């Protein structure tokens, strides 16, 4: 059963993506560690962490695409799960500092010492063990998502109402984590990490290892998502996205499906956060900011909603653009980024991958029909459209006269 489940994940497109990822996972660390500095193949440290960060963002985008692209749940609060995963990892890293903190307190992190905390709060227990922290990386976001989803989906909160309460969720968490009384370091968050699993966090090898780990996590999650979306469950999800009540009348318990994929997605976001933190070296409540969650949605839209590769590509591209713009055009980069978003929505409504693959399909079909008409070849088969990509028909007509504002949904 499992093999067939995984087997479904594979096809040429996925294969190419996985090949690229595999190459990156091997070549980047190798280029960083083995190639001598100054050689054409040398990958500087700076690039390794940067690309590692992009990969974790890509994983986050993948998680959002799973719920939004395939199930139609527009989450404007996924950064919350990302940050919670990050905090779980941050707490582990904090405990690893031990007596190397500035006050040398073996138990209490520095921020607790100077705010006069006397003992470790109970919810910090266990985070000195990696396995526990790793478990929490999954369980904390997963549990929160489960509880939140259980209520929201059962009450049939949908559309923009759901989006806004996910915003409320992340905003509330933002405010809560800002509070120094919470015991998570307030605005400064957790920082000054020393090592992870005994490896120095600033060592080149650790960094390359974290990069590889992010890559592997992304690949694994990609395969899981791919298998999932191509299974019957994936078809049900798309059915829910397109016609929720029809799906109900077919006997599917929509809330269970949503809850399942929502919780899974939150866990993936948690993993992304956990890998993000050791690479950037800090986790603080800013990660909960509602704007961050909106940005993730934008990555997905730029790449192509409902295509897993698109989510990954969008996250990498937008963040690369951001990195480049903030360095090259520090005073006006927001114009460029804002312009990019407007451009993509207007001219690439299905995102980059969606548009390219549509063009590709059309081209192939034209060729195939030509071949058929000239008397050779099989009849043109149905377009191998990804079930995720929203149907062409619905919005093909963009003329303003027939365009119809719908109630926000």
């Amino acid at each position, binding site marked *: *059963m499992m093999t*067939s*489940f995984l087997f479904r994940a594979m096809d040429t497109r996925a294969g190419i993506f996985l090949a690229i990822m595999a190459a990156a996972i091997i070549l980047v660390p190798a280029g960083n560690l083995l190639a001598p500095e100054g050689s054409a193949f040398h990958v500087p440290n700076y690039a390794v962490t940067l690309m590692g960060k992009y990969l974790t963002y890509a994983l986050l985008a993948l998680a959002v695409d799973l719920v939004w692209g395939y199930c139609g749940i527009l989450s404007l609060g996924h950064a919350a799960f990302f940050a919670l995963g990050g905090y779980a990892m941050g707490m582990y890293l904090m405990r690893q500092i031990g007596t190397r903190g500035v006050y040398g307190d073996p138990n209490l992190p520095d921020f607790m010492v100077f705010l006069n905390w006397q003992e470790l709060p109970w919810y910090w227990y266990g985070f000195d063990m990696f396995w526990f922290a790793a478990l929490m990386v999954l369980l904390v976001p997963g549990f929160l998502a489960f509880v939140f989803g259980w209520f929201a989906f059962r009450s049939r909160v949908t559309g923009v109402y759901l989006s806004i309460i996910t915003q409320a969720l992340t905003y509330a968490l933002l405010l809560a984590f800002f509070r120094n009384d919470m015991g998570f370091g307030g605005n400064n968050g957790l920082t000054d990490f020393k090592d992870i699993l005994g490896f120095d966090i600033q060592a080149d090898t650790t960094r390359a290892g974290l990069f590889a780990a992010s890559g592997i996590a992304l690949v694994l999650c990609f395969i899981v998502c791919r298998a*999932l979306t191509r*299974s*019957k*469950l994936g*078809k*049900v999800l*798309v*059915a829910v996205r*397109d*016609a929720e*009540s*029809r*799906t*109900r*009348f*077919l*006997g*599917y*318990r*929509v809330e*269970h*499906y949503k809850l*399942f994929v929502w919780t899974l997605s939150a866990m993936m976001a948690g993993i992304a956060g956990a890998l993000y933190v050791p690479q950037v070296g800090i986790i603080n409540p800013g990660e909960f900011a509602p704007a961050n969650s909106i940005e993730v949605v934008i990555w997905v839209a730029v790449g192509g909603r409902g295509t897993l590769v698109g989510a990954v590509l969008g996250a990498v591209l937008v963040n690369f653009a951001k990195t480049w713009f903030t360095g090259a055009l520090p005073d006006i980069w927001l114009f460029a980024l804002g312009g990019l978003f407007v451009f993509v929505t207007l001219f690439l409504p299905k995102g980059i991958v969606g548009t390219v693959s549509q063009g590709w399909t059309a081209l192939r079909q034209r060729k195939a029909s030509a071949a058929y008409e000239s008397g050779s070849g099989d009849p043109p*088969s*149905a*377009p191998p*459209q990804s*079930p995720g*990509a*929203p*149907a*062409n*028909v*619905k919005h093909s007509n963009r003329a303003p006269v027939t365009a119809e504002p719908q109630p926000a949904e």
Partner: protein
Amino acid sequence: MARASSLLYLDGVSVSFDGFKALNDLSLTIGPGEMRAIIGPNGAGKTTMMDVITGKTRPDSGEVFFDGNIDLTGEDEASIAELGIGRKFQKPTVFESHTVWDNLELALKAPRGPFATLFHVISGAEKKRIEYLLELIRLGGKRGDLAANLSHGQKQWLEIGMLLAQDPKLLLVDEPAAGMTDAETAETAELLKDIANDHSVVVVEHDMVFVRSLGVKVTVLHEGSVLAEGSLDHVSANDRVVEVYLGR
């Protein structure tokens, strides 16, 4: 008909929206294997009645029983569907970004839980069943097309096919002939009659020709309750019916 021997039993059902009474003390009984046509002018409460039966709307008062003793008012859409009530909507609702084949596969009677579907592998019997249905609804050549690209009539048929795939005990069919050509309408009537051989069917329809071609017992709804019941000839002889419905 007594509740125990009925397939569907509605008694004194009332529903109101913001003071507007959509259903007003509606009582209706469908027997096992029966096919029933329901007619009535706009706003008579036909769709609301379907909503009540399928669990989309909760009645303010009254009883709804399925199969004699299953109280439907406490169930949600999914469990009602699993009990064996299938519904076709007024506006054809199919999954537009799925292929015709996938639409049928999703509707096919099978375990409905997330984990069951996650690890589901399509079996030979299921494939056969889908092939059979594709033949039946005459979409065999379009199996790989996206449902979005079907014509209006084809969507209606696909939806009926999906209903059959569910293999329900009771089919609720809302205006199956809407927007069809005359030929398609006739074929649809034939199809429904075939279906009625081994299912109970409730058809809501405006088209009198269509209803006549079904040749079954007719219930006339008006302002949320039953105005008349009997053969089409019988009810069209009823003065009240003529007055409210035919408007003559």
